[in-house]
């Protein structure tokens, strides 16, 4: 049993977590392509962003490191995990809030002009295809 668990851990440490992250990202892209409703496309955009942030945070891990706040006994860079991806991801999360707000403002204007937010009705309203 322990042999099986360590085998699974070795697999997850090497490539398994990257598989799941890529699968979440690709699922978000599939949702953005396939869903005909514009609000679902916005929600899938936020789902894709979570996959990218998790991928960045994976790079900052160190075996046996603690969170990046200084503890008064522990010195040396080996004992703390990398604080640089955390800073970048803070900015990314806050900017995604602004992006969602602008997207919803656009959605409200589209609804007022065309009467619905389904893709087929808007294409018929535009009469271009």
């Amino acid at each position, binding site marked *: 049993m322990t042999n099986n668990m360590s085998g699974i851990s070795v697999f997850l*440490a090497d490539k398994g977590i990257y598989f799941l992250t890529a699968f979440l990202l690709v699922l978000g892209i599939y949702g953005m392509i396939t869903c005909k409703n514009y609000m679902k496309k916005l929600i899938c955009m936020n789902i894709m962003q979570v996959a990218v942030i998790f991928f960045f945070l994976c790079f900052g891990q160190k075996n046996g490191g603690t*969170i990046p706040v200084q503890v008064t006994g522990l010195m040396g860079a080996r004992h703390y995990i990398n604080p640089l991806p955390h800073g970048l991801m803070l900015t990314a*999360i806050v900017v*995604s809030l602004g992006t969602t707000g602008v997207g919803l403002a656009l959605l409200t204007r589209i609804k007022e002009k065309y009467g619905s937010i389904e893709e087929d009705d808007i294409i018929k309203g535009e009469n271009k295809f």
Partner: protein
Amino acid sequence: MHSLILEAVLLMALIAITLVVIFDKDLLAAVVTYCAFSFITMFLYIVMGAPDVAFTEAVIGVISTIYFVISLRNIDRRCK
């Protein structure tokens, strides 16, 4: 500090929630499920050892869900 099996379980829960969001016909249900998605990613960030990012995600996930629910008032709740 970070355990890989716990991360794998949480990621699989996230993938299951994404499938619910894509294939549901009721927009209000999709938005509330997005709130649950945001909640589980907060746990994921804590397990990864990033409590600053988790704190920010918790607050901004709630605000983002509120924006979606308010703008759903103007918009038809059904989805084809």
